């Protein structure tokens, strides 16, 4: 029977791994992720989960253990944050290159130095080019739903890629919210057991992902690119199907809010998308035509959706909880790249906000919107990258 529970996003991620009937969990603790693998350890210990729980000596080993388990044909899960994710970097390429549909929760935390335990997206966005699908969640319910959806997506034969489910540390990870957990039979019906694209077999031994000569390597890369394109289409289908069955839908790749007639569209990721909706409502009370588009899937990037939004809007404001040093926020770059070549593209203003866990409230976003509207009126972005609330 479906039930509503009140718990933190980290515990909810644990409930999702249980609901997905994950068979192998490889775990190494790191703040603010730790309570995910603690919750799962509890489930395995008390018999609620019939899984192997492998305690490893590092995040690199955690990912490699998941690769081994997935290659043996079972559903796998792990979770990490910040420096743990950075340590996994090499193994992330092995997971995607071997086409293993591992699902991992990444509880976003700013990178050191200097040390921080608070959220921004610099950890997961640094893994942009590893061939992992990247989802960003706005609330605890979405964390649960996206983990279930991700297994369905990643295990599809047209995809066979791993995925990160990103959620901001503390803002979500340690915050209690009510979450509806569907009936287990209905989840089982939605998410059938994992069928591997290839599987290790002791009776017919082979090694995988071996040395490939220059005449074949490019083709393997191209197949990953094709899988990403397939994922773009499937994410939307799976989101719709999930919505029909369980009542929660997130707009597929981009969650759009009051964009239909908007002059200005606020582009965000993660929890900033929730604040942006409040900001939109407040701005609309003043008669300002503002909409919000939360990029839910960063890889594959929703290029076509950006172009569709650009048909209506005169101005885009990207709010990045991230900085690519020496350039700008990644979201700003990707949005501009998506629009290049369009006939009359909207102006794009880039804002850097919320690094290292600084709050990005609806008030902050209203300020960003008003500055953007000013630039829209004069037809010129006066400052290409604006750091919000920076101390002078």
């Amino acid at each position: 029977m479906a039930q509503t529970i009140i718990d933190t996003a980290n515990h909810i991620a644990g409930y999702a791994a249980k609901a997905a009937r994950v068979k192998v969990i490889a775990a190494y603790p790191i703040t603010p992720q730790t309570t995910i693998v603690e919750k799962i350890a509890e489930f395995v210990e008390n018999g609620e989960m019939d899984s192997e729980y492998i305690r490893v000596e590092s995040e690199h080993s955690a990912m490699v253990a998941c690769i081994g388990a997935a290659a043996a044909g079972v559903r796998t899960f792990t979770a990490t944050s910040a420096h743990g994710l950075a340590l996994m970097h090499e193994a992330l390429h092995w997971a995607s290159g071997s086409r293993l549909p591992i699902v991992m929760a990444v509880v976003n935390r700013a990178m050191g130095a200097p040390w921080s335990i608070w959220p921004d997206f610099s950890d997961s966005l640094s893994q942009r080019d590893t061939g992992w699908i990247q989802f960003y969640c706005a609330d605890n319910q979405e964390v649960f739903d996206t983990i279930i959806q991700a297994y369905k997506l990643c295990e599809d034969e047209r995809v066979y890629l791993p995925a990160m489910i990103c959620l901001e540390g503390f803002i979500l990870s340690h915050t209690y919210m009510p979450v509806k957990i569907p009936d287990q039979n209905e989840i089982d019906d939605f998410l059938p057991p994992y069928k591997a694209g290839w599987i290790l077999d002791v009776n017919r031994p082979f090694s995988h992902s071996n040395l490939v000569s220059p005449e074949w390597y490019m083709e393997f890369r191209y197949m990953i690119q094709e899988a990403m394109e397939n994922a773009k289409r499937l994410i939307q289908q799976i989101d719709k199907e999930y919505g029909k069955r369980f009542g929660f839908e997130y707009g597929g790749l981009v969650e759009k809010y009051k964009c239909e007639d908007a002059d200005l569209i606020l582009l965000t990721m993660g929890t900033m998308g929730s604040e942006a909706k409040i900001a939109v409502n407040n701005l609309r009370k003043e008669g300002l035509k503002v909409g919000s588009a939360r990029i839910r899937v960063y890889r594959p990037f929703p290029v076509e959706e950006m172009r569709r939004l650009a048909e209506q809007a005169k101005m885009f404001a990207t709010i990045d909880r991230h900085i690519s040093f020496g350039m700008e926020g990644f979201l700003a770059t990707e949005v501009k790249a998506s629009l290049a070549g369009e006939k009359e593209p909207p102006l794009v203003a880039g804002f850097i906000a919320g690094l290292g866990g600084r709050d990005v409230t609806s008030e902050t976003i209203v300020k960003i919107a008003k500055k953007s509207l000013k630039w829209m009126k004069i037809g010129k972005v006066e400052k290409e990258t604006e750091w919000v609330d920076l101390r002078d």
Partner: protein
Amino acid sequence: MSSIHKTRKEMPLTPLSYPTVGSMGKTGSWRTFRPEIDYSKCTRCTICWIYCPDAAITRQEDDSPEIDYEYCKGCGICANECPVKAITMHREEE
């Protein structure tokens, strides 16, 4: 691999390599030093057979080792590991 697949559509998701004899050709030609077994000293302990990284030593029915010179690259690991010094390395031209 190029001998198996002609187009991208026939390719697997990731390269899968099954064990095969001599996919790189007769690697014995790479050898500079040649291991030779003195069977009067050999105790049939099979350590050389276990350590050979190229599986170029086969184990006979009485456990005596036999070196396959078509594939032995002459790395010398067997000679190094042999506890009774029954294997010695000799320069090929000698």
